């Protein structure tokens, strides 16, 4: 039963039975987003360094928080994660500081600039998992991989199911309603918005709206204020800082939504991470766009 669950979870992520250890019990491997093989050790790792806020949240949620011994300075959720020693940045991490924590698993975001670090962790004999976590599907995949590695696929599946159910509930609730066109303000100088390659675009759709910048295919991209005005969104989504910029800067008056005060202030810590609070994020967005549509 237990083995069955592990194998199911592992087979989700393309597996091979590649190696054998001393006692000739096969150790399973999976392939990470750098194309490297990651061992699924026979006993769950107990010293994990997680260099990505999203995976840190996931580890705490599936009950492995006590196994996390290192995090980045941006991993602030849940509150108990703040008690874990901080090891610097998650992109181009300090390899020496991470190795010095003596981890048996390092998890990092699979961006190109993290490749040298991943290679070094492997060279030092540390099991390393590089994961690209950009879409809602990546969230499911990542939690299921973590479940397999931690030998607790049941709990991982519960987390995935509950988030998936919440997202489905929000999607159903907003299905019949009118879909406002929204512009998501990520950064002001330069002006950056969400493209269709991001889970935030997926969240907009689930919450019953349409992104005016789906033609940007990456996770985000730079744009101009004039172009925002031309696309004439019904609402602007922005964090607290972006909101005050939009209010204070007279240039934003050329955008109808800014002029008429249709700026929805979002909690950036909640909605800007593809993690276990995706469901909560979708509910909060849906209620901002369609007040009272879901509880």
């Amino acid at each position, binding site marked *: 039963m237990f083995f069955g669950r592990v194998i199911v979870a592992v087979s989700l992520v393309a597996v091979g039975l590649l190696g054998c250890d001393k006692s000739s019990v096969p150790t399973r491997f999976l392939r990470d987003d750098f194309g490297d093989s990651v061992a699924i050790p026979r006993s769950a790792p107990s010293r994990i360094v997680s260099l990505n806020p999203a995976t840190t949240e996931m580890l705490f949620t599936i009950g492995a928080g006590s196994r996390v011994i290192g995090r980045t*300075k941006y991993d602030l959720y849940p509150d108990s994660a703040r008690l874990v020693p*901080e*090891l*610097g*940045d998650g*992109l*181009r991490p*300090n*390899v*020496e*500081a991470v*190795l*010095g924590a*003596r981890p048996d698993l390092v998890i990092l975001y699979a*961006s*190109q*600039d993290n*490749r*040298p670090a991943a290679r*070094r962790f492997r*060279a*030092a*004999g540390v099991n390393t998992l590089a994961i690209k976590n950009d879409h809602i599907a990546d969230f499911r995949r990542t939690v299921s991989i973590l479940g397999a590695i931690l030998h607790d696929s049941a709990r991982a599946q519960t987390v995935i199911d509950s988030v998936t159910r919440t997202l489905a509930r929000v999607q159903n609730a907003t299905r019949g309603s009118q879909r406002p066109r929204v512009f998501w303000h990520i950064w002001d100088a330069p002006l950056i918005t969400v493209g269709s390659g991001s889970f935030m675009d997926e969240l907009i759709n689930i919450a019953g709206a349409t992104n005016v910048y789906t033609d940007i295919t*990456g*996770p*985000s*991209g*730079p744009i101009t204020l004039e172009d925002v005005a031309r696309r004439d969104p019904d609402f602007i989504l922005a964090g607290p800082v972006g909101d005050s910029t939009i209010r204070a800067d007279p240039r934003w008056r050329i955008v109808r939504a800014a002029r008429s005060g249709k700026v929805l202030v979002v909690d950036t810590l909640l909605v800007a991470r593809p993690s276990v609070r995706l469901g909560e994020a979708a509910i909060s967005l849906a209620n901002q766009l369609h007040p009272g549509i879901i509880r």
Partner: protein
Amino acid sequence: MKQFRTAYWGLLVAALVLVAMIAVARGAVPLSIAAVLDALRGRGDATAIAIVRDLRLPRVLLGALVGAGLGASGAALQGALRNALAEPYLLGVSGGAAVGAVIAFSIGVSTDAAITLASFAGGVGAVFVALAVSRAGGRTSRADLRTLLIAGVIVGAFANAAIMVALAGAQPNTVRGALWWMMGSAADATWRSVFWLFLSTLLVGGALVYWAREIDVLALGEDTAASLGVDAERAGKRAFILAALLAAATVSAAGLVGFVGLVVPHIARGFGIRAHRPLMLAAGLIGATLVVAADLAARTVAAPTELPLGAITALLGVPFFLVQLRRLS
């Protein structure tokens, strides 16, 4: 010409060895001296061995080679161009190398070897463009050494503009990689990169030291050089290209490490050295010491966050330079 006293050589070598030892012993992870010595011999804890042998040692060596290359390159250029403010980065080397690296980053290439090659090609390419520009500006078809510096500055400015255009619409990933590269860092040092930089420093630096006499003559002025039977244009161009190659090799290994090429030759001259053979060797030793010390500061001052190496060398180098300027005037 004042002779460089033998005692100074011992002092310079001792300073480099001492700083290098401290740099191997200290880092983000506190290790006892005994643990470091054990790790160097491959004994004891596997993590400590990995930290000392695969992280710190190559990093210290790479830093030393970068500093040595930049110091020697700066000394050769200041002599050959008879300009105390000449430095390798002013010749378009840094701008060209950065363009090469940024192009590599923005087409999604990320292997160390590819970025090293791209930046080296960019740096060398920019130097040849600068040579062509200086030739175009002259009355004859011969390259004018005096206009070379200006040509280098112009090529560098053009390179900067190209970088900004390339990065304007780039993904955060690319921008971050390129920016980090431009700030200079020895963090990605591997034994392989140390080997390649060692080889190129040995070859190109060796050639510069071999032709050091010509630089001595050039430093006297082109007319004097001609009357002494040296083809000033040929000798100047050779020194220029070799110095640029040396700087381009360091830049492709560790990005832009500012101010070393400018400041270090002045420190070396502060010891009373005038002849270019000992001057380049002394500048190499001082440059190595300065960069190893700066890299030590970069990785320990705000640990576990790393500071940009290029900024630290400038912070350390500028006060030295100002003291030197006061002494000269």
